[in-house]
């Protein structure tokens, strides 16, 4: 089977559900599985992953597995340093799962995985400077420059949800106060809606009725539904979240200057009810507005399965890459060599090379060398291995 048609498995591990699927090279999901996440014991989570893969593998021929996990994934994409909703602490997930499955495994932060699929198949296609913001319970973030995920020194770049936007503001699980995700996420929408209903305000009458009279029943999707029906207070609640979204995006634009923001996650189901006020606030708070080109703000197109598809596609990249090119980090100058893994630059180089290739031809080492500010030293050391 040609690698370009090979299937991979993507697994999205959330705080409550494990969603897995078999994904083809065009990002189509051919088969799906869902189960609860065992949250207490890392071993049980591994078991769940292994069982899920074996189940899917029994019906499909797959070459690799990608895991998107809500948490800090280290720079080598092998360990989960910390996961807020799972028991992982410096968990060497990749190696453990690889050993059990005998397949190449890639571990990626869930928001990064989702962003990757939006860039490959969704709202961010063709964008050289993409920032993805996933609005769920909290806020997940990812930065893609020229199709390379920016991971930072330790693998945990793009955690936008924890930018401080209000000094001394709402408490956040990360240990701080005033994080963006306390103002522009599903949790924020729910909190504000419940508070309004609890205050007994007559404007929240519809909202409370939809919640059977109990503010605790109010949730984000309920507010979105009501807003779509034209309920003024639900529209306002989404406007408020949208405004905070736009303000935070203006901060990100000051720092990152992207061409496009893709907004995904459950809250983005509200569509223009959320994005129109976000654009307005963005335009009103962006530094240097009027004297600079401005980023587009668009909705993600892939929905809740973006993470799964992205993880699977990253696994395909990795498997393809591993088979075709073995690059030793020693072949690179100290500045560009990444930790114990590959540098983003090497990935980018490999990706470009891979993109140009159609068959199984092994690239000449010279083709890995691109004229850049840093040169890859001693290209002769870049060995191309043919597939066994």
């Amino acid at each position, binding site marked *: 089977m040609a690698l370009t048609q090979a299937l991979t498995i993507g697994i999205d591990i959330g705080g409550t559900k494990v969603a897995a699927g078999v994904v083809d090279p065009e990002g189509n999901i051919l088969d799906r599985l869902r189960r609860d996440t065992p949250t207490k014991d890392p071993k049980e989570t591994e078991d769940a992953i292994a069982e899920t893969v074996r189940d899917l593998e029994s019906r499909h021929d797959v070459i690799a597995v990608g895991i998107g996990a809500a948490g800090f994934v280290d720079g080598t994409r092998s360990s989960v340093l910390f996961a807020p909703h799972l028991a992982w602490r410096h968990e060497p997930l990749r190696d453990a799962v690889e050993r059990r499955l005998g397949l190449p495994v890639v571990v990626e932060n869930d928001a990064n995985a989702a962003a990757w699929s939006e860039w490959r198949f969704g709202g961010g296609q063709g964008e050289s400077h993409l920032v993805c913001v996933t609005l769920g319970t909290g806020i997940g973030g990812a930065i893609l420059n020229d199709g390379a995920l920016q991971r930072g*020194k330790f693998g945990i770049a793009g955690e936008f949800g*924890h930018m401080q936007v209000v000094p001394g503001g709402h408490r956040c699980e990360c240990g701080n106060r005033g994080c963006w995700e306390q103002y522009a996420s599903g949790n924020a929408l729910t909190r504000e809606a419940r508070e309004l209903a609890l205050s007994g305000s007559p404007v929240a009458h519809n909202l409370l009725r939809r919640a059977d009279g109990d503010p605790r029943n109010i949730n984000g999707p309920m507010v979105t539904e009501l807003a779509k029906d034209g309920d003024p207070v639900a529209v306002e609640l989404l406007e408020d979240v949208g405004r905070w979204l736009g303000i935070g995006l203006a901060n990100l634009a000051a720092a990152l200057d992207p061409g496009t923001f893709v907004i995904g996650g459950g809250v983005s189901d509200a569509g223009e009810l959320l994005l129109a006020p976000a654009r307005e606030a963005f335009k009103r708070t962006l530094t240097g507005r009027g004297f600079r080109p401005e980023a587009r703000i668009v909705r993600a197109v892939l929905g809740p399965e973006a993470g799964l598809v992205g993880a699977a596609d990253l696994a395909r990249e990795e498997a393809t890459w591993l088979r075709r090119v073995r690059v030793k980090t020693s072949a690179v100058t100290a500045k560009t060599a990444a930790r114990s893994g590959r540098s983003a630059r090497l990935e980018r180089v490999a990706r470009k090379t891979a993109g140009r290739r159609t068959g199984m031809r092994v690239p000449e080492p010279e083709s890995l060398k691109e004229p850049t*500010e840093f040169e890859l030293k001693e290209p002769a050391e870049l060995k191309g291995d043919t597939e066994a």
Partner: protein
Amino acid sequence: MGLSIGIDVGGTKIAAGVVGADGKIGARSHRDTPATSVDETAQAIIDAAAELIAEHKVEAVGIGAAGFVSADRSTVLFAPNLAWRDEPLGERVGAALGVPVVVENDANAAAWGEFAFGAAKDVEHMVCLTVGTGIGGGVVIDGELLRGAHGVAAELGHMRVVPGGHRCGCGARGCWEQYASGSALVREGRALAESGSLAAAQMLSVCGITDSSELSGPMITKAAAAGDPCAVELLDDLGRWLGEGLASIATLFDPSTIVIGGGVSAAKQLLVKSAQVAFEKNLPARSNRPHPSFGLAELGNDAGIIGAADLARRRESAR
């Protein structure tokens, strides 16, 4: 590899230098900045460079300018202190000199200088702040300067840290540079003195002045170095704002090193220590992640010249 010229265009001075591939500055030239006239400013830049080109064989010229620089690194889209609006500076200077010209944002150029030859020469992920009148930012990711889609990335001083806060020259309110810059330091010092605070009165006498309107950033730094408690507190407050803002910035870039430079960094550890303490207290999920290191910039006022020259040379050699 040959020589290149780096030019730092400030609000009052234009400083140029011939820089070798080792980042060392040889000959220098200076001009005053004629801030009001676009043509005169361009001419002053050309003069400063021509003076050096007459004596040295250079391959390229790099210009660091405060403002938004286009993605192709030739046009200044907007400069807050100079009269440039969509000014094709690179083309203009290049045509006059007959040498390829690269235009860079001044803070980017300074950050690159520190990355290539200064405080961050051994790392690949760096955030560099130039803390002066405002805050200039420069970010290096995986060994590459972050420019963004349109060339105007890393304007870190204009991230909003206080909703509805102090007015900023950029048109917004509550920008970081309104709280963590030299201007903020002086504003707070003066406000304290005008409130009638005895501690501030003592600080003024340590500074050798009686009128709070004469108070300047360097005075406060000097008084703090001499142990004046009021000046120490003012710098401590500034450091705290710096550290809190950097904690937010670390969530974006996950750098291995944070470098602090610019005029205010003359306060050295008085500033960096309090910034680092505030940073450590405010980094999200701080107990479950590696932390970046903090360092002072090493190249001083030359960072912009060295960085601009090096970026110009690198682009030429990549061609």
